């Protein structure tokens, strides 16, 4: 009997505690509801608490427009972005931009899709450049051409290599923001020790990578080259080899029939077999590659320009960057995020003012670019004193920018994200399972044509 009461009282206690939590929750929610779309949704959380006071307080007399800005920046880059938004809000008494992290690029895209469908979308968003075309196809983005002209700007103000995913059907749908490109990172200490020069073409790369291999017994203890698992690097190499990812008519791929695909993957497989190339696992592969590089276990690495800052501060060897080696030509794809205005935005004027300021104002993205290590995207920015000073101090960053003259994206298509899934499967089959290159790529071609033909 005693046991029964004991049980009852402890269970009762749990239930009562839980009830109180529920009531608390209800309060929190109503506070959010009352204060409307503006205050509650802002990133200043204490507002939602103070708002639980009587809802009689009228909205402030100054007409303040709130702009919702979704982005995929986290960690330090998010801090830099927050500082940028604060500068904007401080200098624009009538506009309040609220920036919110929405997950990775992919997750942001999913959320944009469902929020556009339910009319809960933001005014301005960051969009991974490869997805711009998909949103353009759904007429979800606003044409910024008229606003650009009205502000006395032109598309020529921007770095051409970064404008590949901006204009569709003569509409200006996105502008570059946090952009990067793959580059060659070199542990020059290791190369110098063997008297090897930094490779500039595939042949030199092959020789250098093999010469840098160190083995103890059968086990490789030092590799020549590594690169994260990503479509980026094979695409770069396809273009360096004179090919294109998609054919010009966008009906098929343009690197199979001409043998370029076999060439590229054959090259990579040769390096992998001799122990010269370490190809990391699919998951967290960027970290694994960085780890090998910083601990001197690999001499060279293909990796994003976005890593330069972090690597420079963590390595204790002579660290330099160089162009990706060429075969028939220098070439490199681009990556990272663009900024776009949603067609559904109700505050387009204010949204444009934010984008204009972000893109061109000296108080705008310049500081963000300097801090984060992303590429300068307007000509004015690249010529600014701040950037020039930075380059003088950190030539590695200048190399990244200079390489943009060879930037080319040949994988543009509205269905690229779906084709990318299939291409990933092909890369995995070849790089991890050592499946036959030709037949794997033939299968991939068939799948790509099916998707492109839909």
């Amino acid at each position: 009997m005693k046991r029964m009461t004991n049980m009852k009282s402890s269970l009762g206690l749990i239930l009562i505690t839980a009830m109180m939590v529920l009531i608390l929750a209800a309060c929190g929610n109503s506070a959010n509801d009352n204060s409307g779309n503006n205050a509650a949704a802002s990133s200043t959380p204490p507002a939602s608490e103070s708002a639980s006071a009587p809802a009689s307080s009228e909205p402030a007399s100054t007409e303040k427009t709130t702009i919702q800005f979704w982005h995929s920046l986290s960690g330090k880059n998010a801090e830099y972005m927050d500082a940028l938004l604060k500068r904007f809000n401080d200098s624009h008494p009538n506009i309040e931009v609220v920036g919110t992290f929405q997950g990775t690029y992919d997750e942001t895209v999913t959320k944009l899709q469902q929020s556009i469908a339910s009319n809960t979308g933001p005014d301005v968003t960051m969009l991974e450049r490869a997805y711009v075309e998909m949103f353009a196809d759904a007429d979800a983005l606003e044409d910024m051409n008229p606003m650009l002209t009205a502000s006395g700007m032109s598309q020529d103000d921007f770095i051409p290599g970064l404008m590949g995913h901006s204009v569709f059907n003569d509409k200006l749908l996105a502008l570059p923001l946090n952009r990067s490109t793959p580059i060659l990172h070199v542990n020059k200490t290791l190369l110098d020790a063997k008297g090897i020069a930094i490779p500039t073409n595939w042949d030199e790369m092959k020789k250098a990578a093999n010469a840098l291999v160190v083995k103890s017994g059968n086990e490789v203890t030092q590799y020549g080259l590594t690169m994260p698992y990503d479509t980026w690097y094979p695409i770069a190499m396809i273009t360096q080899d004179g090919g294109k990812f998609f054919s010009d008519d966008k009906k098929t791929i343009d690197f199979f029939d001409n043998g370029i695909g076999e060439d590229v993957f054959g090259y990579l497989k040769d390096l992998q077999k001799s122990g010269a190339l370490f190809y990391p696992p699919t998951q967290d592969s960027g970290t694994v590659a960085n780890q090998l590089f910083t601990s001197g276990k690999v001499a060279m690495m293909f990796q994003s320009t976005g890593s330069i800052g972090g690597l420079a501060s963590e390595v204790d060897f002579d660290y330099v960057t160089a162009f990706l080696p060429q075969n028939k030509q220098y070439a490199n794809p681009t990556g990272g995020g663009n900024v776009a205005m949603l067609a559904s935005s109700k505050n387009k004027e204010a949204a444009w003012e934010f984008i204009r300021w972000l893109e061109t104002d000296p108080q705008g993205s310049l500081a963000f670019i300097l801090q984060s290590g992303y590429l300068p995207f307007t000509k004015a920015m690249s010529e600014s004193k701040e950037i020039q000073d930075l380059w003088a101090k950190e030539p590695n960053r200048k190399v990244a920018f200079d390489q943009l003259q060879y930037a080319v994206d040949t994988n543009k298509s509205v269905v690229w994200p779906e084709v990318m899934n299939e291409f990933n499967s092909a890369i995995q089959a070849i790089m991890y399972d050592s499946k036959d290159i030709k037949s794997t790529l033939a299968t991939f071609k068939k799948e790509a044509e099916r998707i492109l033909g839909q």
Partner: protein
Amino acid sequence: MANRTTWDRIRPYVMIAPAMAGILTFVIYPMGYLIYLSFYKYNLMNRAKSKYVEFDNYKQIFTRGDFYKALGNTLVYTVGVVALTMILALLTALWLKRNTRLNAIIQGGIFIPHIVSIVSVSLVWLWMMEPSHGMLNALLRSLGIPPSHWLQSSRTALVSVIIVAVWQAIGYYALIISAALRNVSPSIYEAAALDNASRAKVFFRITLPLISPQLFFILVIMTIGSFKVFDIVQIMTGGGPNDATTTLVYYIYSYRTTNIGYAAASGVTLMAIIGLLTFVYFRLLSRKVHYQ
């Protein structure tokens, strides 16, 4: 009196009404919506651009190898995880049956993988399974067994994922089983001891039948839970290499942005498969209940 019988008649409906409301709103309605989407090449962001395609999405599902591969992976995963976890959890529970302080601590310890976020769990295993420098291969080499590629080869990737899933689940199910074991009345064992029955005999003749309802229950919930596996695949392999670990839910999810109509059609197909499973289990279950 008549009032009372009316109330008696509607009472069960009132009692299940809130639960059913939740299911109708958040399970049945979304599934209906998916059925609708599955007949379209749907453009979520611009409905005007959607195209009615009849059964095209379904035709695609059944003519494409990757769907069957995902289905096969899911079945292998489910059978592997359920069988291994059941056996190992049962052995663990038997081993830790006695009510000692050490056993309580160890039981707490093996429960840890279940509560630590999947990100930290997977990170550790990614390291341990690294082919050239990982601990598992170091261990195999020291035992004279050839090392494995683990997650990096399509032959071993699914097995590797199963190992991690089992490792993660054992603690939780061992807890349930050991609670059931402690529930078996000591007098039954004492009687068996008097009969001089062997330990194996006691286990198979007495223990196992007595805890079989719990085991059956675990079997059911684990089958269902494994069939909808997602997290561990997403974090450990991303479905690779070469689709070797793509399970059905992961497959469906990977089409969410690019082809929602196709994703919906695969979702409906998954629902049909799961519905069939439900029916079978429901049958088994009601029979089980009658025996009691």
